């Protein structure tokens, strides 16, 4: 059997969600100003943006709860003019999903399965299978009111999958969960994407989550897309011409003197005195000198080692999604 690389796999995947120039205003306030992106099957797209960026509006439009002022979107070939048909093809875990208290998990999923057109028997069987898939089979007949927050989130994911959707929208799925719960839920999402070949739009404020499990990312700011593409591409889009280096705090002055003597370094900034973090900005002459140039890495490390300064941590500044997000949103604010 021929094995494909992830990149090769992606190129064969169909586009299951396509948003084109979506606009939405609430009175004079523009919530979305031309949102466009696409998602392929089997990929996870991270939806990022500060509060009020338009994420919730975008998700509500894409899940047919709101109508856009202009623009369109297509889900698995179905145009947004047919919201009912789209609802058959999407699954949603809203940010604050409420559950009836006096109902068991299997009854809950059976009810929604029937609303999607299944017979009672089929809906119940499928609900039980979903509960097994999300790890709730032991509590299938417990009242939902007795569930913990993490269990409710799992049940919410099961409910989002009750119609075997093509695209699933998960809005802050790990909100309020402990670190272990977060990890388990992210693993579950990854597994579901892999096994079902479903496309997932994941809204989250936890940039580490997006960084960890998303293939693509869309960063929104004031209703506009300020960056989009694969996570790697978006990180590359931003300026990465600086290093972060951590030395013991007593050695900070010595380290600054040593590094200042190096010809490639434009500026040295003390970012955190108590933990000993320095930010080294490099000269940028046609990007000959950059963080991707390994020679400069060695030069910096070599100079510090020769001066007998312990290097506690070293890496490119801006190489994480968090840095990209902060940089882009800061630029937008300016």
């Amino acid at each position, binding site marked *: 059997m021929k094995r494909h690389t992830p990149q090769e796999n992606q190129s064969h995947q169909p586009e299951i969600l396509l948003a084109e120039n979506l606009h939405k205003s609430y009175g004079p306030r523009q919530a979305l100003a031309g949102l466009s992106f696409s998602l392929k099957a089997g990929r996870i797209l991270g939806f990022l943006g500060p509060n009020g960026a338009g994420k919730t509006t975008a998700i509500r439009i894409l899940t047919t709860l709101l109508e856009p002022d202009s623009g369109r979107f297509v889900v698995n070939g179905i145009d947004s003019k047919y919201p009912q048909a789209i*609802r058959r093809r999407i699954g949603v875990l809203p940010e604050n999903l409420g559950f009836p208290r006096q109902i068991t998990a299997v009854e809950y999923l059976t009810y929604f399965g029937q609303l999607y057109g299944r017979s009672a028997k089929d809906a119940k069987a499928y609900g039980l299978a979903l509960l097994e898939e999300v790890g709730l089979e032991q509590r299938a007949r417990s009242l939902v009111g007795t569930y913990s927050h993490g269990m409710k989130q799992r049940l919410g994911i099961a409910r989002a999958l009750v*119609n075997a959707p093509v695209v699933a929208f998960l809005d802050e799925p790990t909100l309020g969960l402990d670190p272990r719960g977060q990890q388990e839920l992210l693993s579950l999402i990854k597994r579901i994407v892999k096994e079902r070949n479903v496309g997932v739009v994941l809204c989250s404020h936890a940039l580490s989550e997006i960084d960890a499990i998303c293939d693509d990312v869309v960063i929104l700011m004031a209703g506009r897309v300020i960056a989009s593409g694969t996570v790697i591409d978006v990180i590359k889009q931003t300026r990465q011409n600086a290093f972060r280096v951590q030395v013991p705090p007593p050695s900070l002055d010595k380290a600054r003197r040593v590094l200042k003597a190096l010809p490639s370094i434009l500026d040295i900034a003390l970012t955190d005195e108590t933990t000993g973090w320095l930010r080294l900005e490099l000269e940028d002459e046609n990007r000959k000198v950059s963080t991707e140039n390994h020679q400069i890495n060695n030069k910096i490390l070599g100079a510090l080692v020769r001066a007998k300064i312990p290097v506690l941590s070293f890496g490119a500044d801006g190489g994480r999604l968090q840095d990209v997000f902060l940089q882009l949103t800061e630029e937008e604010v300016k």
Partner: protein
Amino acid sequence: MNVKSRSLDYQDTLSGIAPPAWWLVFKRELSDLWIGGKAFNMILIYAILLGVMVYVYSFNTELSLIPPKEAVYEMLKNAMAFCMFVGLVIGADTLSGERERATLESLLLTPTSRRQIVIGKFLAGISSWPPAFIIVLPFLNVLSQGDEVLGPAILWGALTGTVLVLAYTALGMLVSFWSNSNKVSYFVSLGIFVLLLVPAELPGKSAGAAGQFLQWINPLAAVNHFLSKHLVNYRTLAEFWTWLISPVAFLIITCVLLFLFAGPTLRIEGGRPSKFWAKINRALGLSVILCILFSMTAFPALALQGEPPGGNLQISIDMSYGLVKTGDKVEFNTVVTNAGSSASPPLIVAMNIINLDASGDVVDPEDWSPQRTQYLEALGPGESAELAWIINTILEGDYMVYMVIIPAPESKETTSQPIASPGIHLTSHHTQGSTRKECFLMQLARRWLYY
């Protein structure tokens, strides 16, 4: 079952296998209402209240004198009002409550039509009415004491109650549809309930055309009026069917608004779905405020106007006492005034004479006066009529003379409230040699002392 093996395109092939969505929503809501305890608790409170009412009617010495048909009517009226309240409260929670509990969004994300969701919820909302009506039946039976009013009370109670409960539940759901929070929904719904209930408790018969119209247009007041006429006064349907127009129209309007306008546009957020509805909402809000202001100013006035017939009639006498010789003729005048804003019915003014001495003879007024009863035509607003009276003091003693105005009842089956005048304290005695002039002087002296 292999979950993963399912085709992604199965969605389009499943339609028609499951029961209709409104039925599924109805069953789910029914379960929430009754197993969740909300409807059950309300019905329990309702049953207890009915029990207390029947107990009071049966054991309170004054209330136990109420004729069975009136007791049945009162019980039916109160039971219906409570059921409307329950329907309104359930309706008011239906959509805004789900918004607050964040359970509406997942329902709206299904391919179910919005209207079917609303229909299912509405049917569940009215589910408390059939058991509530069944519960009231034995109470009505007890109060009727075998009176033939029971049959019509059950029939018309079921019909009018169903119309009102359906309309009020739809009204509650409409308010809930437009409310973003449950607090607002409850507040507005209960405000409307009180606004419609208060005038229903005011008698509007003599409140003039405006009062009658308000009574007629208020569905609850109109039904109460119809039931009171039909059940208590044995008036026919042909005479009073017009009082059923407003409740039926109210039901049609609320249902059309709910199912044809609001239902299909049900959304995750209440309030303003569009600029058009924003304007409508503003207009509605303004109307509610105006209604509240109107009720605060107009209802007290109407309440005064709406006193029973005769409540606005006054009678004065130009004499408060008389010291006369037995055999003398006493002449005095009375003035009857209609102080109300509407015309009075024809009036009967009757004189009565009471012997104040417990051991004295009982007075036969016919022997004392040739004109014991006088009749007056209807008096217009502010109009007065003067009547002259003569009394022949045929016996010695201490007497009280007073007049009673009796507004003529509308029909053989109706009654009216008589109004009494101030009395004339008349003392008659044998006095040798006294003259009419002396008597008059004594009268003057007594009057002076009195004042």
